[in-house]
């Protein structure tokens, strides 16, 4: 029997999905412990053991694999609470990091300010020594400058150091020499060397990525060290894998070295999970939204592949490492309601988080949060939150909303709570607009897969705002990313520079580079216990026309390169260039050059399989557990609506909105504009009233 656990540590909750060969997947949730997230993680494992009738010490050794996503680095970057970092860089260019090439993203907004640099100027230390554009030394590295910088770093108690010198992509010698000295003098400091992290041209991309890595490194390393120690203490002897921003997983030791690759570790599993559920409805495209306690993430899957970027920004900090394209905004169950200077009701981005949490948790929270509003409006059951393990205090929530919002706004408590609900839904709809409309996509054409503990209570109204006709709430929606983590493969990305024309290619040399990267990947996959037949290698070439300065990264067949078939590769490039940029230079006869060779080594992991249910008829009466008064969001009036037990719904059940479907860890509000039908995997297919054709196969399954 194998036992796998997906663990997603969020700002408010830590989610678990437990998958065994011999039983249905099980969901667990526990409050996060932001000061040391590994505590919450072990608390959750303890809960799981208890529910299985075991002790933690009995459970832990039986776990084969833990796949883990963390927001440690994300939060550190967003809140600028990463390590005190020093930068060693070539004399004369120490301000590149802060200047950001002189961009102001909002050209017409004179109130728009620059982001504070992650390394302040006085910790950006210049070093003499210079390499020219092809890596020839024109001035020797001045070791005294490195030593002087180290003295300052020590005096300032710097925890992390980044090294990035001009033209090091062409020759890493100076960076290596400086790194050796730093490592010797400050062995405990977290060190990132630019040519190792990102051996490619463009100084600003490299210096910014390198700094992001060092800035986040100490926190991630400390966290993973603590986690590994805790897991060892409780007897875990399986494989721990960490989710990376590119949607793949790696061993903790690899993750610690490339901290910047975990900036989207938490949400990166979302699109993969979303696709799994959407595919059950014959969809290769989907929009995934995940509303947790603190943040809301939106992402897209197009033609079966999550959309990605090789360059992007995190909080306006440049990062040139591969990652999924995910929009994150500060909206969650913990988002606090407040009144701005203009007298308008606002929600978030400040969050009550897990501690103290919303007022209704009774843990000392004083500011009314989104969860308080949901409770007052009747969308949450005070006695069945977290399966009844946590009692919610409606009176306290009402009182807080009344005092902080309703009275100042001259409203009733219900009006203020509904206002909070509408404002936050609007904010989230804006996030969906970012990932769809801003990229020229119509959100109405994509099924919206809804996740996160708070998501299903809000999804219909986000859908209504954007006229999205079809929503899918997976049975595991509350721990969506944890589920996605167990569906993710191991991925290791390698890149080598190879500059030359395809017509004059040294095919042996090229294949040598490729085989070298495959061999490096094999070592890692071997450590990860991936058998040979579960390994895949994807070759990508960065190509361009002669004298262009940007490359097209395209997938190329390994056998074409092995056979030295230059024509095939050139034709691929002409086609890709035309598709992307509207023209090719095939007729002009311009040379095609290769600049970089990339190999992605993939270890296919075993995916959890979900069993299909048998059709149980359309009548949901068997799952109804009662009724409750709620405020119907479309009308703002109280109405009594049926409440269904989401653990007893069966394939085929049709639930008419307005209604509430309660699960242990989440609650789905089907508003008056939508109806719902349960699919064969236990997911809830929510569709606009009158649009039965969207769920025809289920409705006709009888």
């Amino acid at each position, binding site marked *: 029997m194998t036992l796998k656990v997906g663990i997603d540590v969020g700002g408010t909750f830590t989610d678990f999905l437990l998958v065994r060969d011999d039983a249905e997947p099980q969901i667990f949730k526990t409050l996060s412990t932001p000061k040391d997230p590994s505590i919450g993680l072990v608390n959750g494992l303890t809960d799981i053991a208890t529910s299985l009738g075991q002790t933690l010490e009995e459970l832990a050794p039986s776990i084969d694999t833990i796949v883990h996503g963390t927001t440690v680095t994300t939060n550190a970057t967003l809140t600028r609470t990463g390590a005190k970092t020093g930068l060693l860089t070539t004399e004369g*260019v120490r301000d590149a990091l802060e*200047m950001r090439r002189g961009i102001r993203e*909002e050209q017409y*907004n004179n109130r728009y300010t620059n982001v504070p640099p992650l390394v302040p100027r006085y910790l950006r230390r210049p070093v003499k020594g*210079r390499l020219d554009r092809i890596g020839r030394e024109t001035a020797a590295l001045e070791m005294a400058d490195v030593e002087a910088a180290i003295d300052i770093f020590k005096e300032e108690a710097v925890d992390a150091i980044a090294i990035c010198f001009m033209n090091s992509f062409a020759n890493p010698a100076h960076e290596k020499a400086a790194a050796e000295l730093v490592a010797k003098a400050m062995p405990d400091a977290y060190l990132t060397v630019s040519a190792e992290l990102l051996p490619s041209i*463009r*100084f600003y991309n490299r210096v910014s990525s390198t700094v992001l890595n060092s800035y986040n490194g100490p926190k991630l390393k400390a966290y993973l060290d603590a986690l590994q120690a805790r897991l060892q203490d409780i007897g875990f002897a399986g494989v721990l894998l960490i989710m990376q921003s590119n949607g793949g997983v790696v061993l903790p030791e690899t993750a610690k070295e490339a901290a910047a690759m975990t900036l989207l570790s938490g949400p990166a599993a979302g699109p993969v999970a979303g696709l799994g559920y959407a595919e059950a409805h014959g969809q290769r495209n989907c929009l995934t939204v995940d509303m947790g306690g603190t943040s809301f993430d939106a992402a897209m899957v197009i033609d079966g592949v999550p959309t990605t970027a090789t360059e992007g920004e995190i909080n306006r900090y440049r990062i040139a490492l591969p990652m999924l394209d995910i929009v994150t905004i500060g909206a969650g169950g913990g988002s606090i309601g407040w009144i701005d200077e203009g007298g308008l009701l606002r929600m978030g981005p400040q969050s009550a988080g897990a501690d103290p949490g919303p007022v209704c948790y009774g843990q000392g929270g004083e500011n009314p949060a989104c969860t308080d509003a949901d409770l007052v409006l009747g969308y949450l059951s005070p006695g069945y939150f977290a399966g009844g393990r946590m009692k919610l205090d409606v009176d306290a929530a009402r009182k807080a909303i009344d005092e902080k919002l309703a009275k100042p706004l001259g409203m009733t408590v219900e009006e203020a709570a509904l206002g909070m609900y509408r404002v936050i839904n609007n904010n989230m709809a804006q996030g969906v607009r970012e990932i769809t409309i801003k990229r020229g996509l119509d959100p109405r054409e994509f099924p919206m897969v809804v996740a996160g503990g708070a998501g299903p209570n809000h999804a219909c109204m986000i859908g209504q705002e954007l006229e999205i006709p079809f929503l899918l709430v997976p049975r595991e929606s509350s721990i969506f990313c944890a589920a996605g983590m167990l569906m993710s493969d191991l991925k290791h990305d390698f890149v080598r520079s190879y500059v030359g024309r395809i017509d004059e290619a040294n095919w042996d040399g090229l294949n040598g580079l490729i085989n070298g990267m495959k061999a490096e990947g094999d070592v890692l996959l071997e450590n990860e216990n991936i058998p040979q037949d579960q390994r895949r290698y994807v070759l990508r070439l960065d190509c361009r026309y002669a004298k262009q300065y940007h490359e097209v990264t395209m997938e190329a067949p390994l056998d074409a390169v092995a056979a030295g078939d230059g024509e095939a590769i050139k034709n691929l490039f002409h086609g890709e260039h035309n598709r992307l*940029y*509207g023209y090719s*230079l095939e007729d002009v006869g311009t040379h095609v050059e290769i600049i970089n060779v990339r190999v992605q080594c993939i270890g296919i992991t075993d995916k959890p399989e979900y069993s299909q249910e048998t059709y149980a008829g359309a009548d949901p009466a068997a799952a109804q557990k009662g009724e409750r008064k709620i405020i119907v969001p479309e009308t703002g009036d109280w109405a009594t609506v049926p409440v269904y037990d989401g653990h007893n719904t069966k394939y085929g059940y049709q639930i008419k909105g307005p209604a509430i479907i309660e699960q242990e860890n989440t609650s789905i509000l089907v508003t008056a504009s939508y109806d719902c039908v349960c699919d064969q995997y236990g997911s809830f297919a929510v569709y606009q009233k009158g649009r039965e054709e969207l769920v025809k196969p289920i409705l006709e399954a009888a």
Partner: protein
Amino acid sequence: MSKIEIDQILLSVFARAFKSITDEMSISVEQTARSPILCEAKDFVTGLYDGEGNMLEQTENLPILAFSLAPVCKYIIKYFEGDFKPGDVIFHNDVFSMGNQNNDVAVFRPIFFEDKLVAWTAVKGHQADIGGNVAGGYNPNATEVWQEGLRIPPVKVYDGGTFRKDVWDLIFANIRFDIVAEDMRAQMGATNIGARRVVTLLEKYGMEVFEPHKLALFDATKKMMQAEIAKIPNGNYSGEGYVYYDGKNIGSKYTIRVDIAVTDDAISFDYSKTDGRTNGFVNGTYTSSASATALTFLQMVNPDIPHNEGMLEPLEIIIPEGTILNAGYPAATTFGNHLCPPNADAIQRALGPVIPDRVTAGWNNLLSSLTTGRDEEKDDDYVDIFFMGMKGGAGAMQGTDGYDHIGMIDASGGVLDQDYEMFEQQTPHTLIQHEYLTDSAGPGQWRGGIGTVTKYRIGSEDTQLVTFGDGDFEPAFGLFGGGKGTLNIIKLTKPDGEEMIPLNKDLITGVPKGTLYYQEAGGGGGLGDPKKRDQEKVRDELRNELISKETAQTIYGLDD
């Protein structure tokens, strides 16, 4: 045809789809162009227009270029009397038919749907060369347009999909560098990308839905702009900005004078009292000058107003021919784009007392340079506009420090520094320093943006260097008690130790390899009494050597 109802969601889908189309066209040029002016600095704009040439959306990396595209589009439609076929591609740069600068060459592509001309895509970019007397295009000695470059009135280089080799060869036989032809191909490709996206959009929604939504979008945008103008008190306001040296007469100075009239929800900018044209190349065209006015005013209103035809409707801009801002045929006008900073100064000064929380203090004026020559090691020609050296600080605003190292107000942070390593790949030069310049920001409760100091070693023998700009006589002005920024400087030190300071519009040939190029781009003007500045900020900037100890103590009154 039944009346189509306006769908609010669809309206924003269209608005965003237009934006994503012009953004994608912009990325396409950035990724494929050869000249660093385009692929590194993004000195180009992309746009989408309806069948009549009305602006639907633009990506305005350099706004000064942007507001001359729609007028050219309309001119082209009239010029060919509607004779367009699918597969046509039209070039244009002519400054006497609504172009803004000779080097800024545009590609226009008509888009057909169901056999009807429904839209246009366009890309205008600053070309590495446009013929004329001086490589790279800035000829400070020019007195008429023919000395500046090749004029391209509307011309089809593809006619119904057929390549016109004769026309193509005529154009490129008059231009120095091969990469210009390649870059025009990149621009054509981008217009093709835009055209594909437009057709996909129309296939999905149909013209009968598209048309009324387009009109609704124009209308909504116009109302947003009118609402912004209505916030400015009615009245007449005047301001001046100054141009120093016309490239011909040492010590010459010209005044740009604007009379602004606000009447409820309309605003007019009248430049009738502006000085007459120069006999050199320091002259504007109507479109470059009107662009300058529009982009300055747009910074004083809600920045979220969409950029389409409706936005500019409530603005009236009067620039009589014969003034320095609209010189008329056949004047030399290459410097015209760079009359934006003094024009912006005039507008900020005029409106400062009326809307004190929406104007800024003076921005650093542009002083730029361009080198051309032979990269011996690569055995190739190069052209480089030195963007990284020219970007000084923005003016401060009430409540906000000026943006550091942003550069000329006509780009407002849309044009970027060359990446340092790309600069060394694309030229034979070696970068020595590019850093913030201590004490350059105009002091104030809200300080001006910080300027920069830049040094590089010239790497080719017999280099030609052109300077063009201003800001070495008058620094960026302070407002409401704030101090002024610092001046611009360019200085050359030859290998034999000889120093020379070029004029702000100058052509220097035969610069030897090994010459040290030194440039300071000044800081922006400050706003409000420096003594009222948050002392924590002062201490922080002192620690980071952005201000000196002396400035901290004497100007900001830091007592520890």
